């Protein structure tokens, strides 16, 4: 009896933490001042929030059905793998398009080539130039 109460508390805590983190992520995206700052919110806070929610859902259905199910873990794994990849691609897109940024946002990644940060035109060998 008592461990059901504890499990309910854990599930409720994970749900509320997930909701709070998702809201914080979207708030950061809506409120911060330039694109590179805005990238922080969704990529970290929202990913953590949805991980919390999926864990809560997995625990709930584990308790209700009596057996674990891999579906939520699959969604969590997939999101945790793809979120950094899409964030990296979006940051590269922002650098390539040379977006406006506030003065405090500075520095550039040393590993990118000149055409990737918009200082040189991108080469298209398949179209005959470059």
């Amino acid at each position, binding site marked *: 009896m008592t461990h059901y109460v504890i499990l309910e508390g854990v599930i*409720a805590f994970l749900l509320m933490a997930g909701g709070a983190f998702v809201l914080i992520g*979207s708030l950061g*995206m809506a409120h911060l001042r330039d694109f590179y700052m805005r990238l922080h919110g969704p990529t970290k806070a929202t990913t953590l929030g949805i991980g919390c*929610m999926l864990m809560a859902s997995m625990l709930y*259905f584990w308790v209700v059905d009596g057996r674990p199910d891999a579906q*939520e873990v699959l969604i969590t794994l997939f999101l945790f793998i793809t979120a950094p990849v*899409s964030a990296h*691609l*979006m940051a590269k897109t*922002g650098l390539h398009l040379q977006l406006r940024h506030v003065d405090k946002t500075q520095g550039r990644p040393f590993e990118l080539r000149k055409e990737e940060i918009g200082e040189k035109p991108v080469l298209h060998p398949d179209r005959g130039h470059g």
Partner: protein
Amino acid sequence: MLDFALTFSLATVVLALLLNVYRLAKGPDMPDRLLALDTMYVNAIALIVLMGLWLNTKTYFESALLIAMLGFISTVAVCKYLLRGDIIE
């Protein structure tokens, strides 16, 4: 306890979706809108998971998995288009 937690997280996710719509409409540049859409599909997955908890059914998790995959692929495709002017070279 669980009812309150579920209602609270549903309210926060809906609020987050509204903030995403704001950034999607306002976003000064293309990558901002792309970021808003990317966050929006993650929030849609959260909404589907919460709906599954609310209705006490597991039927909708496949759709959550589908949204996760298609959202990632579409984000990568739009990024590739903005970076190279082409999706498949």
